[in-house]
C-alpha cells in the first residue's frame, strides 16, 4: 500500500466496460516504491468516498482489484482508506525513502511527528530506495 494525497478526479465516458461506475481519483504518492514508469501520480479507483485534499491509502496490484469488487477490472490501484493521522518518528520524515521523497518535502497533511528525533532513518528502517513490498 502507498500513502498519498488525493489531488484530483478524472472523468471518462469512452472506457473499458469493466470500468463503468468507478470513481477515479488522481493520487500523488508521498512515498512511492518501485514505480513501474517513474510517474509521480497514480489513478486509483475510489469506493470509500475520498475527497480531494484528503490523505488516502492506496493498494496497488491484484488486491486493489479485489477491493474494487471486480477482480477482472483492468485497474492498477484502489483507495483502501481515508487517513486520519500518520505518525512518523521525528527526523525520519525527510529520509530518502523513495525517489519522490528525495526530491520534495511533500508530506502528509495529517502527519504527526513523534519521538525525540535522536534516531536516524537507518534506525527506523526507512532508508530503502528500491524494491520494497506493497
Amino acid at each position, binding site marked *: 500500500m502507498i500513502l498519498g*494525497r488525493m*489531488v*484530483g*478526479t*478524472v*472523468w*471518462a*465516458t*469512452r*472506457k*473499458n466496460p*469493466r*470500468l463503468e461506475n468507478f470513481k*477515479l481519483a*488522481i493520487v*500523488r504518492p508521498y512515498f512511492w516504491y518501485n514505480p*513501474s*514508469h*517513474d*510517474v*509521480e*501520480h*497514480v*489513478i*486509483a479507483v475510489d469506493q470509500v468516498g475520498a475527497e*480531494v*485534499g484528503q490523505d488516502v491509502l492506496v493498494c496497488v*496490484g*491484484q488486491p486493489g*482489484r479485489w477491493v474494487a469488487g471486480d477482480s*477482472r*477490472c*483492468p*485497474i*492498477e*490501484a484502489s483507495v483502501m482508506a481515508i487517513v486520519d493521522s500518520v505518525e512518523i518518528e521525528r527526523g525520519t520524515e525527510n529520509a530518502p525513502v523513495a525517489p519522490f521523497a528525495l526530491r*520534495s*518535502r*511533500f*508530506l*502528509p*497533511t*495529517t*502527519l504527526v511527528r513523534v519521538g525525540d528525533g535522536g534516531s536516524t532513518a537507518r534506525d527506523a528502517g526507512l532508508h530503502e530506495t528500491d524494491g520494497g513490498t506493497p
Partner: protein
Amino acid sequence: MKLCRVVGAVWGAKEAGSLGGRKLLAVRPVAVASGHSPADISADGERADLQDGIIVALDQLGAGIGEYVLVAHGSRVRDLTLGPGVPTKDVVVAIVDSANIDLDLLAEGGAS
C-alpha cells in the same frame, strides 16, 4: 493507471503476429506535480505539462493524437483486456473527458 497524453501513433511494417495488427499509441504521462500543468485537463484545453519518456500503449478504444487517456500497466491488465498472449504490458483503458487537479494541494511541504 496513469493519466497520459497521446503524442503519436506507432506502426510496424513487420511486427509480432500475436500483436494482430492492433493500434499502438505513443503516450507521455502528465506531470501533475510540475507546477506548470493547468488545473483542468481536457483535449480542448490548455496543454498539460508532460513527463519525459514515451510509453507505447495498445489502444482498443480509438484515441486520437492530443487526447488524454488512462493507461494501465501490467500483465494482469493485459490478460483482462486483451487476453493472454498479446506481447504488451501497457493498455489504454479509458479516454479522458476531463480531469481536474487541485494545484494548491500539490505544493511542497504541505504539512508543517
